[in-house]
């Protein structure tokens, strides 16, 4: 039951991004799918990170009309590597999340540009880098690190409440 609920919520994150986040007055919509994948990879390990990333990635591909498999590939990689970093430097520090999200967003953007170049055709690299990859990475890092920080704080509070009840 819990699995189905999580699957449903994860699935909703894709239309949530297109409908609700696009209403917010931000110059660039941040990539909720990337942040969710990062969260699952960092805190729940490689298997969940990769699976969630691939699942949300293919949903994004289908709904956005992009070349099928591109986002699936990228988000599976983000899920895997965030788990690798998560195991290496498990930290509560918001700055760590900021740096990692910035890194993963840049990796996602640059690889996306490369794959589009391979399969679809050329998009001017300078335009893509300055007009999209860097600003999106900055927004993702800013909002993603705050979101992850609060989710982490809430999880820790729950854990401490549970252990004090037990005592």
């Amino acid at each position, binding site marked *: 039951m819990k699995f189905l609920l999580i699957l449903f919520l994860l699935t909703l994150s*894709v239309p949530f991004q297109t409908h609700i986040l696009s209403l917010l007055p931000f110059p660039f919509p941040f990539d909720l799918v990337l942040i969710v994948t990062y969260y699952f990879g960092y805190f729940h390990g490689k298997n969940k990170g990769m699976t969630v990333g691939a699942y949300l990635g293919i949903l994004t591909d289908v709904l956005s009309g992009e070349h099928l498999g591109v986002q699936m590939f990228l988000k599976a990689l983000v899920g895997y590597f965030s788990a690798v970093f998560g195991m290496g430097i498990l930290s509560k520090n918001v700055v760590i999340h900021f740096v990692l999200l910035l890194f993963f967003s840049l990796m996602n953007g640059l690889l996306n540009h490369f794959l589009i170049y391979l*399969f679809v055709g050329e*998009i001017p690299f300078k335009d893509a880098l300055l007009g*999209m990859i860097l600003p999106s990475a900055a927004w993702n890092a800013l909002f993603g690190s705050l979101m992850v920080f609060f989710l982490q704080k809430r999880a820790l509070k729950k854990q401490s409440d549970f252990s004090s009840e037990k005592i």
Partner: protein
Amino acid sequence: MLSFFLRFRQSILLFILLVTSLILMTSHANQGAGFQTLTFGLFEVTAAMESWFSSGFKGIENYYHRHIHLVGVEKENRLIREQVTVLQEQLNRLHEIALENNRFKELLKFQESVPYSMITARVVGKSDNSWSRTLILNAGSRAGVAKGMAVTRPEGVVGKILSVSPHYSLVQLLIDSNSAIPGIVQRTRAQGIVEGKITNLCQIKYLDRLYDVRVGDMVLSSGLGGVYPKGLVIGTVVAVQKKSYGLFQEVQVAPAVDLSRLEEVFVIKNSRLPDDDQPFKSIQE
């Protein structure tokens, strides 16, 4: 053997996922029959979900706007306020119907004025992630929509159909970075390819630097390529830049249609004008 799989299960899972995505990417490039069936199925399910979410979200938004601000009302005024709410709701609904009616009248007028047959469709979803700009329409192959058909509004070009499932279709907007429309500058008849940019503008590519193009010039579809009929408005020139080198000039075009507020669109079924065949017939004769 089993211990090998257990030991390397995470690497194996990563390998399987990456290989699956690579197979999908290459199949997308080849567009095989099996791949088409897979994408139809996936798109049908996800588009239905998107449509459901979209209508649900609109319901919540309407509820919020109509009811939440009345929470702090005093008890003695509740009845009157409820009546006001009901009336307000009815008024809103009537206002919405009147606006919809006006839109439909305009669409009908447009549909009657053009010489090609068209399908009216409602926008039920959208996706504007950083790399692609698409819409989901509630008309699919059962309504006669097919891949490659042009999508338009009375104001001008919207885009073209990218993929179709039985009940839904995906539209690539003209500002999508993969979109390319053969265009012509109305005043000077200079021709080029209008491509989507990463911003909300388009640019005309391969436009000879010797042509005179000015800010404010209207850009129309040239009819080349067979997707968009000749003479549809694409947009207006907003910037012209001629560098000191190169064969071409850089021209930025703002789309004529407000692509962020689309509700109903037309899919052009048959983009060929009735008279288009006449010259060929006379040559054959």
